[in-house]
């Protein structure tokens, strides 16, 4: 099966001034597209030729895994962001965050620290584990928590390509900007 680059859920300039349209243009139009293209080039003649993206993320190795997981991760990331995002979660997710981390502020600090200290390229994730509890985890490169049976709730891409045009070496400034865009309604529905 041929994997497609899904459309963005908003216009490329919709996240300004927190994430620039130039960043989105490269991040979505070049990086995300390249992962899709690479994946489609790699799967013919392999057991993953007709696999769903989720099966690839859960079971593949090497280049098929790297590109497949990066396709999934980026689509998920775009859907974590919204021009009307920011603020705080409500409902059950808000309660679970309070129960697990003490307060939303403490959660935010811990998630920000996970995103800031992931060494090299990768992702910070808020996930629901097998016991239904929330966890913050760091994953290198294409790492995806579904490999460990965990349900992704929220992610922040900390590959340098996610922020270098806008913030250069200042990853923490990008993480601060990220909080203004988090789509808590979407995150809540995943929980």
């Amino acid at each position, binding site marked *: 099966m041929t994997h497609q680059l899904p459309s963005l859920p908003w216009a490329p300039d919709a996240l300004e001034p927190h994430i620039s349209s130039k960043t989105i243009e490269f991040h979505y139009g070049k*990086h995300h597209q*390249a992962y899709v293209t690479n994946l489609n080039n790699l799967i013919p003649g392999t057991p993953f030729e007709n696999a769903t993206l989720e099966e690839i993320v859960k079971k593949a190795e090497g280049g098929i895994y790297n590109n497949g997981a990066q396709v999934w991760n980026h689509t998920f990331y775009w859907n974590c962001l919204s021009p009307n995002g920011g603020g705080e979660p409500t409902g059950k997710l808000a309660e679970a965050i309070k129960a697990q981390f003490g307060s939303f502020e403490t959660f935010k600090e811990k998630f920000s620290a996970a995103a800031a200290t992931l060494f*090299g*390229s990768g992702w910070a994730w808020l996930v629901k584990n097998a016991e239904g509890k929330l966890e913050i985890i760091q994953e*290198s490169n294409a790492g995806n928590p579904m490999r460990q049976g965990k349900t992704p709730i929220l992610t922040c891409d900390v590959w*340098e*390509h996610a922020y270098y045009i806008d913030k*250069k*070496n200042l990853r923490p400034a990008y993480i601060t900007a990220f909080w203004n865009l988090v789509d808590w309604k979407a995150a809540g529905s995943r929980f």
Partner: protein
Amino acid sequence: MHKFFNSILLSIILVLTSVYGFSQGLTKDQLKQTGDYMYAGAYRQLPLPYAYSALEPYIDAATMEIHYSRHHAAYTSNLNKAVEGQPWSSTPLFDLFMEIEKYPMAVRNNGGGYYNHLLFWQLMKPGGGGLPTGKLSKAIDETFGSFEKFQSEFNSNASSQFGSGWAWLSVNAEGKLFVSSTANQDNPLMSIAKNRGIPVLCIDVWEHAYYLKYQNKRTDYVKAFWSVINWDEVSRRYEEAIKAVRK
């Protein structure tokens, strides 16, 4: 008599094991013969040997400035923090690399970040590029078949390193050249490296090394790198490494 032969046999086995062991990796005695063995605590950046703009148009001034004055500076200060007040505060950096799994990740990440960049700046110069000469040129031909074949293997390591990392040309414990790549700030001197050796040429393929000018096009950056290589310095390091491992 029986005991005597047993002890002889045991000695032979021990010698063989140690020789075989050495051939698997580098030894401290070998690394002591290299100039860079001197880095040991109170780490400082060396001055950049050229202006930020000197490598234009291949590497732009803005990238050089941020790369040297922000990224490399941060690794340097974080390395000092990772060694300060520790029993290894003045241990040679190469000795830390030799047993890197015994130290905190901050030593591995920042020690690599400190040394890899320090080496990288010296391996480039304005008006660089061209071809290596002398012993290095001969060794490249012997090992890879031709300079073009070496170049293509190096480029493919640099382009295919997934995520952040480096590609390397190094001399192994037997004095042979090889090309490899490492993730993040690891390097071939580290005990955890799959292929171990003394690096003589490297390219940084973290996105911060090229994103301002080349964005997603890492291969264009890798191609441009060949126009700024300081082959005199690479040759000098090659000859030093060969002497060190033959010691």
